[in-house]
């Protein structure tokens, strides 16, 4: 039988703001983000690192926050979906791409998918379709069949690169 351990102080930067809190050593990062920080855009779909609904950007990497302890993120710089919009509050190129290309339906995978795509485009600003598909393979979607998610990311890449978005021929 587990007993509740002493709580530990953690502090980190989330969406540009310094935050801290008291957590049990076993508290998962996703629960710290959702429950302590009340940032509920990061979702939980499987608890086993398969689905990617809980993806956050942690020190420049896409990380599934359901299998990271909050204490492991002490001192980290984290961006969640709530930190993805442009500074003036308008939708980012990716958010706009998902809307324009119908890259979402129920919206449950969307935050993780956008956060992952954000890092993918930083790593590879001009991905091919194959690279996009491989790059988001850690994020599951049950609604869209991915085809429009791929187009959404292509749309965003074009917009970020300042070129016209052209759909690949069939």
């Amino acid at each position, binding site marked *: 039988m*587990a007993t509740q351990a002493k709580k530990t102080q953690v502090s980190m930067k989330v969406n540009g703001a310094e935050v801290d809190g008291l957590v049990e050593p076993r508290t998962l990062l996703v629960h710290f983000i959702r429950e302590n920080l009340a940032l509920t855009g990061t979702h939980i*779909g499987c608890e086993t690192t*398969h689905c990617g609904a809980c993806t956050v950007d942690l020190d420049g990497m896409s990380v599934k926050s359901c299998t990271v302890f909050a204490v492991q993120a002490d001192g980290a710089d984290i961006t969640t979906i709530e930190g993805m919009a442009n500074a003036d509050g308008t939708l980012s190129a990716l958010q706009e791409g998902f809307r324009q290309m119908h890259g979402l339906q129920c919206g449950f995978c969307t935050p993780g998918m956008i956060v992952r795509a954000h890092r993918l485009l930083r790593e590879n600003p001009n991905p091919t379709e194959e690279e996009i598909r491989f790059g988001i393979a850690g994020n599951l979607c049950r609604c869209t069949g991915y085809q429009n998610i791929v187009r959404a990311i292509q749309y965003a890449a074009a917009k970020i690169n300042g070129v016209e978005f052209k759909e690949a021929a069939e």
Partner: protein
Amino acid sequence: MNDMTLTREQREAKLEGMGCKRKRVEDIRFTQGKGNYVDDVKLPGMLHGDFVRSPHAHARVTSINTEKALKVPGVLAVITAETLKTVNLAWMPTLAGDVQMVLADGKVLFQNQEVAFVVATDRYAADDGVNAVEVEYEELPVLIDPFKALDPDAPVLREDLAGKTTGAHGPRKHHNHIFEWTVGDKDLTDAAFRKAEVTIKEMISYHRTHPSPLETCQCLCSFDKVKGELTIYGTFQAPHVIRTVVALIAKIPEHKIHVIAPDIGGGFGNKVGAYPGYICAAVASIVTGKPVKWVEDRIENLTATSFARDYHMTTEIAASKEGKVTGLRVHVLADHGAFDACADPSKWPAGFFNIVTGSYDFPVAHLAVDGIYTNKAPGGVAYRCSFRVTEAAYCIERAMDILAQKLGMDPAELRLRNFIRPEQFPYNSALGWEYDSGDYATAMRKAMETVKYAELRKEQASKREAFKRGETREIMGLGVSFFTEIVGAGPSKNCDILGIAMFDSCEIRLHPTGAGIARMGTKSQGQGHETTWAQIIATEIGIPADNIMVEEGNTDTAPYGLGTYGSRSTPVAGAAIAMAARKIKAKAQMIAAYKLEVHEDDLEWDIDGFRVKGLPEKFLGMKDICWIAYNSPPPGMEPGLEAVSYYDPPNMTYPFGAYICVMDIDVDTGVYKVRRFYALDDCGTRINPMIIEGQVHGGLTEAFAIAMGQEIHYDESGNVTTGSFMDFFIPTAVETPKWETDYTVTPSPHHPIGAKGVGESPNVGGVPCFSNAVNDAFSFLGSTHIQMPHDYWRNWKAAKQLGAVG
């Protein structure tokens, strides 16, 4: 008085009505992480509940010791069947007329069955409590194989039914038998088989799987002792049905139950039923006086909260030598698991499986379904299909291919020879349905021409020769499916759930400034209702879709409706929207006639207002009519501009489609590649083509998963071996094929806007298409039918059994 500077086209475009690829309203919040799903809802003092579950598939529960658990810091209560008996809730009625244990009462009947419910201050403490509950079991013989369920010496599963020879659907012939359901004329069908020149017979299994939406099932119950009111936030596809069910079983007056379904992260049928978690959270809230949240994890979702399919269909077709079908005979062994909790309309124990004659003109048919109990999870939901329609489509589409193979005929040609012809509609099928409309041959030919079907068959023939010569190890399959769905449950004459007729509803209230709100009995789980419902209203009454807010999921504000599943929202609620809008339009016409000083009959509708016939400058727009309706209505007319419609459909709708898949399989590894997948859907009038295409993409991806590997599999001891996303196949973007979509439009003659529904067609048509591609690939090696799912290992095994691999 409208903006005469705009052209007609500009006025139309401004409405963003039907047929427009309107961008989704929902996406603004979802892309920013501002959706509001059940687990995002927090109430003051909220507690968390978690289940102790059975590790055994069949066992007596000899003791439950909660002493240690109650000492765990943060644990406040442990609820068992004994606790629930004090409020008469240890068992609950199912949608199928059976009863189901809420918590184990003396024994457990499937692995991960709910045994006790631990309530604690947070989810971690609840989990500690779960681990501290001590349960002793005495294992019993396990029944997993449905074909052994009716053996005379099969283990007795449902001791509570001892001596009951009649169930909710008639006589029971064995202790593990639930019902036998028969449709059609047996004598005529048997006679057709006696006379037949050609017959085929095959046992076609559709394996057990699970809808697994990305958000699991969850709820938050809050009982207010002072007011005697229960508020339930939940992942409910049918919020009003939940309210009525709670009122009936918990004896709380229905007006004191508030059910709220906020944003839902996918449903696919999983969120139609009522599960023990909901009952336990409600009871826990009543017991503790605090709000109690229950959120299942993925393993619980896959292993305990429902399932889909598990139909074993012995199928026979009688035909002439020329390939004209003359009779169909199907027997289904339906594995319902430990309790019959199938989510079907009450009078339909096998759903609408009698659509099994498909798109073909069978003069006679006979169907018998035997439902049986096994030591598996209860459920039987329609996973992205109307009730048991995908099983029926799989059955007939596989069987037609088997018949084509026996006749040495091309499977597409066999279908073309047997289609119900356009002039036969409305068509009465041999198993009792009245198909509303269809033009099957046109759809099939368009599909064949688009993919260049004849050339593909030639390519396949030369590849087969090359394979025989040993020049390649790859075989090519060409899968064809042509499905007819039956959706839009349904007419009150034959559809109800627990006695509640399956109408649906819409209430539209227009505001003085030309905006409005529509409240619905449906509940989107990703279908985009907030976007598309407003488009119907925009076209009907000329108010821009952007000015219409659509609200669903709050039983206090929404008119009573039966919810969203079985592709029923557009056929039923979509009709209710049009009918409510037309009531408003009729009042608006009276107002316009008064203001324009003409008779109502002298007015004609023109995009966004009324115009006097022959006098184009005399026009009154809807925006102005809204203002007048409130502030200066004609004398004697009551102010306001709103309407409600409850729509009881006269018939089901029958969407259809032609799908073609090209697949290559490496016999040495079993690895397949989907080279091409073309899907032509006819869903009648198309409300938002962008959303339709998105629905088709998603449904095809689920069909791909099911056909090619997704399975809830049990070992002989009743352990679920596919209980997490590690083992349960959900395709990633890498495996998922690219989809080509196409359409024809054959409106439904009885639906106010001619729409038929589309969300589930791709799953219904997709599964047989993939399976037919695999079977077609192997057929020249001598096989007639290989069971799904067709994963790499099974493909390799098939190749080996057929002698293609040394």
